């Protein structure tokens, strides 16, 4: 009994010491224990998939287990708070996205968690496509807007995966710029939108390329514009939003890595370097290309921090100008 108790004490204290190590240790030793990757969305989507691919690469590279943990819910607030509260030693990271780490940061100035995180690097961007149901009597964005203006296209409905999500804001900005009216129909998450679009319950929508491409090829959806900086190889005939004169409207959702605030700069830089190296792996290139995802590693953590700051400011303006209030505000 005494023996086992002594053993227990020894074990506990050595674990405790291990836990204290990173605080004193420099980036040279990092990582000293398993890394936890927190993902603010359920498994299956782009954020989750890139998190898992990066986790796998880092694990191979550094020989420490890298575990992905999905903590969905409350627009990412739960996951952000989890990572913000973790030890500032780089062993807890967040893979978030434009919604959970820019739009929501702008929307919830009182919730400090997301804003307190240190941006590490951008990972991927998902090009979007502005599409319409095949029965909509317009074959281009121009025809659509003209039809709405002349009254030939009446009571147009556009969907979104919820209030304050970028597909809603993109459509809102577009119609506002053109001075035409359309009704917003919010859905519970992205899975409901495609069926609604195909059933013509809503007529237009900003979708991820990966979601839209099969239906476009099948002729069930008409592509009006893509949100990427250049034309997409799979949809070479479809103009970009910028080409159509809508620069700044249309989001290619980004998915990126953050780390607990207060993490030593050397650790942030090592993490940045490690992730960038992992993203250069041909296997990851293939797997993301398969999913119509664009790899966009940032030059440096500081570079990416600037990007996040600009994005947060942009969405703050959009929300304020359109008087959109998000839940809990």
């Amino acid at each position: 009994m005494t023996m086992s108790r002594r053993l227990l004490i020894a074990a506990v204290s050595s674990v405790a010491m291990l836990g204290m190590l990173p605080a004193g240790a420099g980036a040279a030793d990092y990582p000293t224990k398993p890394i936890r990757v927190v993902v603010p969305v359920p498994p299956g989507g782009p954020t989750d998939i890139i998190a898992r691919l990066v986790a796998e690469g880092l694990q191979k590279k550094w020989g420490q287990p890298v575990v992905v943990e999905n903590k969905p819910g409350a627009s990412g607030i739960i996951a952000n708070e989890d990572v913000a509260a973790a030890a500032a030693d780089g062993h807890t990271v967040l893979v978030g996205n434009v919604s959970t780490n820019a739009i929501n940061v702008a929307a919830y100035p009182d919730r400090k968690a997301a804003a307190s995180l240190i941006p590490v690097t951008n990972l991927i961007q998902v090009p979007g496509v502005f599409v319409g149901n095949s029965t909509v009597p317009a074959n281009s964005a121009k025809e659509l807007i003209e039809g709405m203006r002349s009254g030939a296209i009446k009571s147009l409905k556009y969907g979104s995966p919820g209030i304050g999500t970028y597909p809603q804001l993109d459509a809102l900005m577009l119609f506002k710029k053109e001075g035409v009216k359309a009704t917003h129909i919010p859905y519970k998450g992205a899975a409901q939108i495609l069926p609604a679009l195909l059933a013509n319950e809503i007529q237009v929508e900003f979708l991820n390329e990966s979601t839209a491409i099969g239906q476009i090829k099948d002729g069930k959806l008409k592509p009006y514009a893509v949100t990427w900086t250049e034309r997409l190889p799979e949809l070479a005939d479809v103009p970009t939003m910028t080409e159509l004169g809508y620069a700044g409207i249309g989001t290619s959702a980004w998915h990126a890595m953050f780390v607990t605030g207060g993490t030593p700069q050397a650790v942030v830089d090592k993490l940045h370097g490690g992730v960038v190296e992992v993203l250069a792996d041909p296997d990851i290139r293939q797997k993301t290309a398969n999913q119509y995802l664009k790899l966009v590693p940032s030059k440096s953590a500081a570079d990416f921090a600037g990007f996040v700051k600009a994005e947060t400011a942009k969405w703050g303006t959009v929300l304020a100008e359109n008087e959109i209030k998000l839940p809990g505000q």
Partner: protein
Amino acid sequence: MMDVFATLSGNIGIGLATAFSPANLLYCFIGVFAGMLVGVLPGIGAVAAMSMLFPLTLNLAPTSALILLAGIWYGTAYGGSTAAILLNVPGSTSSAVACLDGYPMAKQGRAGIALMMTTVGSFFGGSVGILLMMLFSPVIVGYAMEFTSAEYFALMTLGLVAASTVAGESVVKSLAMVVLGIMFGTVGIDVYTGGERFTFGQASLYDGISIAALAMGLFGVSEVITSIRAVHGADIRSKSITLRSMIPGRDDVRRSMMPMVRGTAIGSFFGALPGTGPAIAAFLSYAVEKRVAREPERFGKGAIEGVVAPETANNAADQTAFIPTMTLGIPGSATMAIMLGALMIQGITPGPKLMSEHPDIFWGLVMSFWIGNLILVVLNIPLIGLWVRILTVPYQLLYPAILMFVCIGVYTVNTNTFDVWMVVLFGVLGYAMRIADLPAAPVLLGFVLGPMMEEHFRRTMLVADGDFLALFHRPVSGVVLGLTIAILAWGLWNTLRLHRARPASP
């Protein structure tokens, strides 16, 4: 016509060749076995298990990855009923309804029969679901895609009206509990305004109350609390467990036939509709059984129909849920989103061309369903004896273990400790409801159906610019709502007639 069969048999050949490769057989086995185990353990649902195994699939061949994940998905439905029947703890959400009559059967010493018949029902439902997927995928998907919010609203209303009889004797109590369930269901962020409803500023409540927490608290935890007070009360254990006791009697078989057929139909239908799925299918098929039963008063006291029909329905729904996912790339549920993710990471875009561009994947997967379902039957039947033996574990050992599994299970769904507190809360509520003799099933029903009705009703109104009659303009929703009104009117007339016939009764 001959062409169709020639193509079909060719495809089946491709599928069988793929599914019977040693590697795929192994992954199929691992998947269904893991699924069954996860299903038996309270609360650890398919989503948690699939996301845990998801990283493994990154390095597998596409078909193997899908076969593995799919096996977990439909395997849980086989295991899910086990804990529900034996311990009154729903193993997965879709098997919560199996508690209602399964547990009373276990108390009567008929646990073996209940498990046997649910296995048979599950296999039957699953098989028909697979057949439908093979033969009519494009047709079914075509119909499903015609469904707008108006149709969903009409179906949910019909379901709730048909199901308002789910409870025991008192209609008033039952309706009150449906309302309570709807209230729980409205917690969270309002989809249309972004406003908070009953969240008390808790971020953890923004997405509403977890159905796993609700179901496991109301049924499982309250059962454990009850048993603390009455350890010597129930004595399921005194019944001997023999192979003979597991074989259903002629009466059981006769009573189960039609419920299996109806359960399959309901399950196949709701499975193919994105956004509904096995839990709703199970509830509605229970409601339908009670509606059509000659002696509805037997329900809730160990009616075999009440176990077989919903278990058949959720398995059928499990299979047909693949139809929109595979043929349109539309995942109807969180589990299907994981399947889709697994497919896409392999460079395969699910969609209308999947069946023609990747016949080996589509047909290999479908054929693996048969194999998996067969493996499950072969695994499950000998295990029934073992499962039933769980009941011989002394309560003081069994119940702490159940509580532990419930907590782990609920935690793993969202990895949020808040949900564990919710289970405790609902356990206490469930216990209080038992004391007050209030039925728990309608709470769950209201919780699932109520908010969906609200969501679809408001969306229909939004799309139709507030024209209430829009609900009746579309043929399907019009007919279904007409049917609902007819059922209501018939019920009312019946009540009045009975009331007049026995004016002296109190």
